[in-house]
């Protein structure tokens, strides 16, 4: 079991409240997507859930243990985090980059164990990165690079993966490729996924649960189909959202209100 729970979480920076009194559950083994307009506080919240940003008030619980009470390494063995714009170290090979995911598992001063190496090779094979493993990260295309970034998160071997806008800058095929790959982890690996997404159609297709945020607060949360069709969603974007059923999946078409 690997459940994250935010209990009355508020986060401010320079006296500006970015996240206000958020209480939400991210259930074990499910995919929850956080949606909401720009500036809603999505990134701030997922950074706090990943434990890389401290909260001003409230507590984040990992399976009923306060996240802040865990050591950095313990936390990193439970939660992997992929930011919207990962820093790509110049000159680092794909293999070394993916192997960074093993950092919380081996000594900081010693080399990775052979078990760590096996995990890295397994991830490279699963993500079809083996052929690229000696290439430099900065020389990859956007799609390949994002696959390697996911590879690092998978190599971390955590039961929870948190992603901030994992489809940024990818074409439609690569967006699907990334999300399909994550869905496989939920379906077959029992992994809990928490992701922010701007594309509401993709959010509805891939998430089981959707959390709607605006102005730092959670407005609504529940099964994806319900939240996607809720009037609050359209209200928070100040748009009319048409939901069209195409072969059983919802496609969301935004229409400006003054038309």
């Amino acid at each position, binding site marked *: 079991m690997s459940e994250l729970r935010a209990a009355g979480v508020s986060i401010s920076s320079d006296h500006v409240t970015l996240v206000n009194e958020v209480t939400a559950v991210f259930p074990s083994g499910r995919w929850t997507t956080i949606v909401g307009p720009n500036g809603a506080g999505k990134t701030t919240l997922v950074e706090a859930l990943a434990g890389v940003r401290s909260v001003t008030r409230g507590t984040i619980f990992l399976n009923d243990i306060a996240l802040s009470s865990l050591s*950095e390494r313990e936390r*990193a063995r439970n939660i992997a*985090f992929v930011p919207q714009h990962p*820093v790509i170290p110049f000159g680092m090979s794909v293999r070394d980059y993916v192997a*960074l995911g093993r*950092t*919380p598992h081996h000594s*900081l001063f*010693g080399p990775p164990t052979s078990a760590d190496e096996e995990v890295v090779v397994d991830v490279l094979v699963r993500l079809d990165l083996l052929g690229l493993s000696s290439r430099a990260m900065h020389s990859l295309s956007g799609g390949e690079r994002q696959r390697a970034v996911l590879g690092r998160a998978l190599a*971390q071997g955590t039961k929870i993966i948190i992603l901030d806008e994992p489809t940024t800058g990818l074409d439609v095929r690569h967006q699907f490729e990334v999300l399909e790959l994550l869905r496989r982890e939920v379906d077959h690996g029992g992994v809990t996924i928490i992701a922010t997404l701007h594309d509401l159609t993709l959010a509805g297709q891939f998430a089981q649960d959707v959390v709607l945020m605006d102005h730092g607060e959670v407005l609504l949360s529940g099964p994806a189909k319900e939240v996607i069709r809720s009037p609050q969603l359209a209200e928070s974007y100040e748009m009319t959202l048409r939901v069209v059923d195409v072969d059983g999946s919802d496609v969301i078409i935004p229409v400006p209100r003054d038309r």
Partner: protein
Amino acid sequence: MTVALTLLVIVTGGATLIGPWRIAPGLILGDIASHLGVGHSHLSALQSSIVWQIRAPRIALGLVAGAMLAVAGGTYQGVFRNPLADPYLLGVAAGAGLGATVAIVGVGHGSATPTWTPLLAFAGAIAAVSITWSVGGRGRSSSTATLVLGGVAVSSLLTSAQTFVQQSSSGSIARVYIWLLGSLGSATWSSVTMILPYVVFCIVVCVACARALDVLSVGDLESRSLGLPVARLRIFLIAASSLGTAAVVSAVGLIGFVGIIVPHVIRLVAGTSYRRILPLCVVVGAAFLVVADTVARTVVSPSELPLGVVTALVGAPIFVLILNAKRRSVE
């Protein structure tokens, strides 16, 4: 690594054989062999003391100082994720300069540089980094920018204080300048053994943390998500490399360029992983400084060039050559 080590051995050997006092290389080799228990030395007592009390400690000090400055430079570049970082970034140089100037000027009328100059230089260097840390290091752990800016402020303040002290006593300006430009000329075995513990400790710490520096190359946020104790690692590495640099500076003065150019040359040749850069810095930094010093003490023999002048004079063209060669191979 093998290439670098071979280079180091050749350089060290070569430097032992060369000097303003001509001694046949064969005799020196014979003497070294006799110390290893092979054959007999044919060196006179004078020649032997030139080799063992003047040349050898000077070369040893060059090896130790070069290795430390290069490793500290490489470490700073990793910790600050900034290729322009050098070991003097946080005020070590300015603090040591002020300490040394006070020592030299304070004694005032004597013609020699006082023996406790290194102590005051060391104290000044440590004080400067501590001030920088207390000014810029607190608050959000993620911000290295404030720390660097703190270093800039502390450096300029201490440099102006140093200039003031220096100008107030015109008789010792020359000696202050000589100290500031750096030299291995005053090397003795005791100066080597004095800084060696610091340097060994610092180099071991930095090289052991090379893997952590590789992790840090993805930035503070992501390193933390990978379980790296970023803030603690940063303060630990800065403290270690500053301590080593302060010890070296107190013994040899301000030798510029080694800390910035050696790591970059290695990066161009051997790649960007600190697991390769830092161990190579030990070897290449040591070799580089001994070469530079050999040039400094032989080119205009029997007088000497300031070491800082030679490191830049030798280092810059090598750097440009490698940079050009690399650029061509990349394009």
